[in-house]
């Protein structure tokens, strides 16, 4: 080791002379007084090439010796900068690693406390009685809808369902904060956004039953809603694919100079996908007006967030892409409303992406194909279902304002329930899609191979109807 450092001194001198390095970079130092690095010191950090190993390790006390160059340290402003292709950076001779985590997690923006009271001195955008009541009604409707469709699946009437239980505030408050022209690219746990925009319970039921009235023409599993009338892109099962698409949508809106942005949703699990990185990076670089809303609900099926990432959640990732971000209490409807509304304004007026991490909890199972008691404690679920329920919390605030009563509550719930049962009955009875819809829309115009296959199938169905489910008229 000692020999190494003796050499390094010579290296510095020879570097200066032989490589004609600018004197602004090299520093002449006297190393005779410096402590020698022990092997153990060095091995605990990165590998240091010989001349770098001579970096000072102790505090930056003033040198006795005259330095050939001004150098920056923590106590001085960086008078010198290094220019690299990415721009100028100040330099430091103190070797310091950015820690893997901050001492303090990014705080969570909230407005309502658990008892539904506005926290004093909160920043928030006021919500009128009309808007608040509508928001509450829709949150409750979403809750009822989820319960009834879930039961319908259990009864075998629909094949599959995904609830949004526990995430009603994110669903409804975000939708309320957007304009109808904002284009929504959902993941799959945001039917409340579609509900807010006017999709009827019948329309939801039709998609779940895949009947003749389903806009998706029966091609996808239940809950894969989509509606161009409501600017809500059709849901697809692959995770996070919508994120780079949202960047493209936002870019289009910008080019068309529309007063609108793209809004896209993702779960905590989805942020591990490559498309998350792609979507955020593209939106940032191409300056697309996109609001990325991450529902951090703690679970990706059975995978807890501790098995999903080691960062402080999702919000800290925004800055890595040059994206303004906020963490919000996703169970606080007023906070979500304010955050989304502000983010949307920023996105549209500044033509930039914004990231919102909405903290919440997935009260329901991942889907009807999941039993989450297998991997998480029943009392954990109960706790979030009862004391941390976003619907109850907002209800308290609305009630405290005198805008909602128990009569309103029972009337809403029983009417909604009745409407849903009727919708399900009607959807179940409704005709099936005609068989031709199997072959349409693969392309804009049916190609020859599909024409042939359609003819072949028609003939087959006529010949052997017992092999096929009834009701699919040719």
């Amino acid at each position, binding site marked *: 080791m000692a020999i190494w450092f003796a050499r390094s001194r010579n290296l510095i001198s020879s570097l200066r002379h032989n490589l004609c390095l600018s004197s602004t970079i090299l520093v002449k130092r006297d190393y005779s007084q410096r402590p020698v690095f022990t092997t153990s010191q060095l091995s605990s950090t990165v590998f240091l090439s010989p001349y770098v190993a001579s970096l000072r390790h102790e505090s930056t006390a003033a040198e006795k010796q005259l330095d050939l160059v001004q150098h920056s340290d923590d106590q001085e402003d960086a008078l010198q900068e290094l220019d690299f292709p990415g721009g100028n950076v100040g330099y430091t001779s103190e070797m310091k690693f950015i820690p893997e985590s901050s001492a303090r997690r990014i705080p969570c923006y909230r407005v309502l406390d658990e008892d539904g009271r506005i926290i004093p001195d909160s920043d928030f955008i006021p919500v009128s009685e009309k808007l608040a009541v509508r928001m509450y009604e829709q949150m409750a409707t979403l809750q009822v809808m989820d319960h009834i469709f879930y039961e319908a699946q259990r009864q075998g009437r629909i094949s599959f369902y995904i609830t949004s239980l526990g995430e009603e505030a994110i669903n409804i408050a975000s939708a309320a904060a957007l304009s109808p022209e904002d284009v929504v690219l959902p993941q799959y746990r945001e039917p409340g956004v579609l509900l807010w925009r006017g999709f009827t319970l019948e329309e939801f039921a039709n998609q779940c039953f895949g009947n003749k009235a389903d806009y998706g023409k029966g091609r996808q599993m239940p809950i894969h809603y989509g509606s161009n009338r409501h600017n809500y892109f059709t849901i697809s099962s692959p995770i996070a694919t919508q*994120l780079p698409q949202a960047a493209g949508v936002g870019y289009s809106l910008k080019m068309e100079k529309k007063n609108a942005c793209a809004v896209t949703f993702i779960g905590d699990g989805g942020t591990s996908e490559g498309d998350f990185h*792609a979507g955020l990076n593209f939106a940032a670089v191409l300056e697309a007006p996109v609001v990325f809303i991450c529902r951090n609900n703690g679970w990706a099926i059975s995978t807890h967030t501790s098995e999903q990432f080691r960062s402080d959640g999702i919000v800290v990732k925004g800055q890595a892409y040059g994206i303004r971000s906020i963490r919000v209490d996703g169970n606080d409807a007023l906070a979500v409303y304010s955050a989304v509304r502000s983010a949307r304004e920023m996105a549209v007026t500044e033509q930039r992406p914004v990231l919102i991490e909405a903290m919440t909890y997935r009260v329901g199972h991942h889907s009807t194909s999941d039993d989450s008691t297998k991997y998480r404690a029943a009392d954990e679920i109960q706790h979030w279902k009862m004391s941390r329920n976003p619907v109850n919390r907002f209800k308290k605030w609305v009630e405290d304002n005198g805008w909602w009563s128990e009569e309103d509550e029972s009337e809403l719930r029983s009417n909604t329930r009745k409407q849903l049962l009727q919708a399900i009955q009607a959807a179940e009875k409704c005709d099936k899609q005609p068989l031709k819809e199997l072959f349409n829309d693969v*392309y804009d115009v049916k190609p020859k191979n599909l024409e042939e296959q359609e003819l072949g199938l028609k003939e087959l169905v006529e010949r052997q109807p017992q092999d096929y489910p009834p009701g699919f008229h040719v």
Partner: protein
Amino acid sequence: MAALLGRSCRKLGFLSSGHGARRSVSTETGKSLNLYSAINQALHIALDSDPRSYVFGEDVGFGGVFRCTTGLAERFGKNRVFNTPLCEQGIVGFGIGLAAMGNRAIVEIQFADYIYPAFDQIVNEAAKFRYRSGNQFNCGGLTIRAPYGAVGHGGHYHSQSPEAFFCHVPGIKVVIPRSPREAKGLLLSCIRDPNPVVFFEPKWLYRQAVEEVPEHDYMIPLSEAEVIREGNDITLVGWGAQLTIMEQACLEAEKEGISCELIDLKTLLPWDKETVEASVKKTGRLLISHEAPITGGFGAEISATILERCFLKLEAPVTRVCGLDTPFPLVFEPFYMPTKNKILDAIKTTVNY
């Protein structure tokens, strides 16, 4: 070496769009252009004719690594012609979003070898966008361009022919031009086709192929194969750069008294079965040739279909002359490739069956 020299013979002149089943391009003459210039012209016309069209991908701003996008950014502005971050899944995903809003997104993937990160977006999203939405949404304005195929020194990752993967995906189209004039017309058709299209450009021909290309705006129809050389004894089917090799084999076969009919498939998905079927019913023999590895290659689909349709008319088994079932090798490229002589041997074997 021989294969490389053989390839360099292609520099002179080009495949005539001869007395084929259809003369899809007017006899109007134009300037002599190579493939990248013809593609460049098509892109200029596309962007000029539709203000809502965009060209983007890695390095397209300065003209692209193969110069296909030269002059576009200067002419149409950086809002419409721009570089993207190095991320194929982002490029295609972003393109889908743009296309879903009614724009034409003409996306460049730098080499077909790097298209795979975008495979999910292409297969699960683009291909199904219209169908799954019940035709409420579509991304028909999406066209993905990528250089493909052997270049003499490309090795594993600059030579691949991945067309077979995409031919298995209902909902997209796959198009491969054989020459500059064809490329311009086909690319314009792809861009204007209301379905997402993957357009593979034979990189070998970017400079090597030179042809007269009409300067005006013209389109060559998709899903229409072209008989580019008539014959009676055997039908050969191919696409892209391979057709030049196949044509050389046909010329040599002719000296030995074998009359070859050569078909350019052009669109692989959906492909023109009728033209190939009609030809094989006439000749009774079929040879398919492609650079991609033989197993699972698109030649297998053509072979199976023709067997179903022309079994009783066949005088010999359908034969395929293709790349070997290996990753595309560097020093062994001349051995790997389906060369003129491999094709000629196969022609003779088939004819003498």
